[in-house]
């Protein structure tokens, strides 16, 4: 049965509290910071999409220069605080830490980054001064990581920035698309406010491109436009029963989790989550944490081909989520219009596809899961119609860019709407690149 309010307030609080608690004390941070070898041309820095000077910011913690430490982080990544909580560091900085080569635990870089940046945000240490307004105006679509990062760089250079955001809060997927036990809505709001503190950035909320505003208008009224509206539409399964009550996409499920109170979120007794990416994990773990009795993650390939990290899968398993490998949804069976079961084809792995992943093919056998809720987490589609409608070059909806510039005059783009959906930290870097391309462009247009 699908219902809400399954747990007590204390249980919700416990289930959605910070999964990676911060250092409680300076001493604790120092123990780890002092382990850092201060590598030269450090692998951790190279593995960071925003190239944060990790050895430097950690060294600064050891010299009690926490203020300088956060400065080092924000210089490369203005969302360094949020990234410290949501980055899959096991495949980025911490995965590259040289201690791994000694079979020793890597430096907890994210935790140290959180230590410095949280202090900076809590104390509102501001490092960047906006240059005098130079009269240039840029419109940005989307107040997510790419948009905010782009806006911050532009504002530092004296550009007046207006961000159009379709939601009523900034932060993008950070605010609306990430498991609550990683970042709280309050933190996301604080981070956005901290970034806006520089001035010169105005966010117009509840403004959606193609609905309330048009690209032509923006091209006319601004010196440049930066598209950073991400991806949005959940992939459909295209199987019978997809319209039954109890079938939901993970994006909506997580969005609701981020914008409502936990006790108001509906969840089934027995839930199947389709997919094995990071979003699938976030949906599965949170369904369990909302009080589902059974959660099964269904994936058409094997564990070896999963797209989430091992660390994430471990979180799901520790939460008690089951996995069903080599199973592809075939049909959702209903009763009285509600989900009753999920029938899956049992698959086997065949030849590698273009990306090198073996192609799963049906064996002819099926397996049936008795579930009352199905959460689809099989990826998101770019806004193909929107993008094509404006004549923007794209590949299946993903905007084509050349050094951040689209084929449309004055229009630049970056982040998930270009790459189809990567990490927050990739979007932050895209925003920096976009800002620099726009600055260069505006300097040349007199």
């Amino acid at each position, binding site marked *: 049965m699908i219902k809400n309010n399954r747990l007590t307030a204390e249980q919700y609080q416990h289930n959605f509290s910070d999964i990676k608690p911060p250092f409680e004390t300076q001493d604790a941070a*120092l*123990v780890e910071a*002092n*382990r850092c*070898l*201060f*590598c*030269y*041309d*450090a*692998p*951790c820095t*190279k*593995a960071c999409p925003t190239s944060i000077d990790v050895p430097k910011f950690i060294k600064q913690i*050891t010299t009690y220069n926490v203020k300088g430490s956060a400065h080092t982080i924000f210089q490369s990544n203005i969302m360094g605080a949020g990234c410290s909580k949501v980055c899959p560091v096991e495949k980025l900085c911490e995965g*590259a830490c*040289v*201690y791994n*080569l*000694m079979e020793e635990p890597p430096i907890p870089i994210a935790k140290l980054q959180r230590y410095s940046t949280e202090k900076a945000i809590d104390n509102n240490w501001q490092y960047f001064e906006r240059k005098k307004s130079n009269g240039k105006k840029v419109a940005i679509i989307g107040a997510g990581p790419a948009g905010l990062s782009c806006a911050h760089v532009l504002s530092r250079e004296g550009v007046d920035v207006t961000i159009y955001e379709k939601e009523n809060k900034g932060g993008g997927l950070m605010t609306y698309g990430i498991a609550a036990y990683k970042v709280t809505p309050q933190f996301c709001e604080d981070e956005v406010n901290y970034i806006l503190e520089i001035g010169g950035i105005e966010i117009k909320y509840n403004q959606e491109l193609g609905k309330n505003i048009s690209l032509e208008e923006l091209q006319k009224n601004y010196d440049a436009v930066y598209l950073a509206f991400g991806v949005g539409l959940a992939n459909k399964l295209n199987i019978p029963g997809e319209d039954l009550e109890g079938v939901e996409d993970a994006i909506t499920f997580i969005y609701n989790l981020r914008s409502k109170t936990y006790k108001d979120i509906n969840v089934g007794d027995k839930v199947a989550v389709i997919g094995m990416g990071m979003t699938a994990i976030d949906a599965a773990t949170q369904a369990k944490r909302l009080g589902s009795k059974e959660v099964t993650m269904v994936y058409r390939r094997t564990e070896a081909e999963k797209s989430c990290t091992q660390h994430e899968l471990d979180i799901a398993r520790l939460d008690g989520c089951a996995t069903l490998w080599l199973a592809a949804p075939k049909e959702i069976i209903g009763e009285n219009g509600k989900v009753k079961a999920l029938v899956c084809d049992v698959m086997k792995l065949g030849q590698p596809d273009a990306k090198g992943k073996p192609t799963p093919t049906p064996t002819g056998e099926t397996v049936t899961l008795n579930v009352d809720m199905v959460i689809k987490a099989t990826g998101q589609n770019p806004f193909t119609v929107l993008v094509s409608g404006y004549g923007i070059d794209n590949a299946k909806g993903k905007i084509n860019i050349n050094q951040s510039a689209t084929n449309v005059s004055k229009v630049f783009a970056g982040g998930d709407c270009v790459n189809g959906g990567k990490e927050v930290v990739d979007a932050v870097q895209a925003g920096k690149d976009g800002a620099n391309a726009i600055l260069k462009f505006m300097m040349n247009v007199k």
Partner: protein
Amino acid sequence: MADISSNFLGIKSPNPFWLASAPPTDKKINVLRAYEAGWGGVVWKTLGSQVKNVSSRYSSVDYHGSRVMGFNNIELISDRPLDINLKEITEVVKLFPDRAMIVSLMADSTREAWHELIKKCEDAGAMGFELNFGCPHGMTERGLGAAVGQDPEIAKMVVEWVMEKATIPVITKLTPNVHSVVPTGKACVEAGTNALSLINTIQSVTGVDLDTLVPNPYVAGKSVFGGYCGPAVKPIALKFLTTIAQNNITKKVPISGIGGISTWRDAVEFMLLGSSTVQVCTAAMKHGFRIVEDMCEGLNNWMDEKGFKTLNDFIGKSVNNITHWEDLDINYHHVANINEDKCIHCGLCYITCEDTSHQAINLSYGDPYNTYTIKEQDCVGCNLCKLVCPVDNCITMVEKRVAPEYINWKMWQEQGLPLNDH
């Protein structure tokens, strides 16, 4: 099992590890705890005229996450009444007759005062004396401690007074707050001291509080120079020790080594450079007396491994391995080698060599791991890369002699051999 018992001028102890004259040897309760833990002996905290200590007495230097790398104190000699000290010494000796009981002395600067103190301590059961000519703070202002040790003439005079009266072995403790410890050491040996010990603490300021702007340790808004000790001073102590162990006059008497000894390894190094026994303070003050257990076992294992049966088999064995720079072999050459299998690509060897040495390491960029190799023709063999490498035995120095024969700097000049041209 090797025999680690010590016989220092007839003063026997089950091992060569004594606690130095300091707060840990100030009272019966501490010394009993030390003996129960297994310490071979103590040098009872300095007795002399009655003094009064201030509160807030220690400060330290931490390094890279490690506490008390260096330690400093502004405590004076024992501030307890002499009679209580003497009574407790008698009681401790009675309970542990097999342990060395040396009593540190610092009498007022008169023959009578020294004679009186010596008599009382001998009566109390002292097995030897250590003359405190080294305390660098508080007592010097009274013309005592380091004020005596810094002037060979005064030191000689005091030692002579002591030797007139003492019937048990006398060790003279030297201050390092001098250019060389040898002049005072020689004067004391010539005056008849039976042994020397060194080093006492080094005058220091451990740091300044960046909030109050008052240096450490803080005493009501002020501080004073303190005596520095602990692991940080070990290299300095070993140097002073070597000069005493090499000098023709001072080497005639046995030495008790002091200065930053924390482990059996430190102790062995002091003994190899001429110490017959070693004295410990800071390490015990940091960890408690239990550290002596590993000191005994580690020493024993090392001796077994090296085939040394008694302490005398290796005491002083490294003294002659420290020579004069002029005698070093210029034809000796070694170059660094990086073991690629062990390398973790941290780049520390590269950046130190590139920035501060001879640009002798090649960097080949990789993502994310660079590869580093030695440019042998540019490597002078300075050891820096090996020292900073965090992986044991990843960088080794490989001997590549310039020529087989020995040649020193003097010979080099005489033969008119070429100097560097870059």
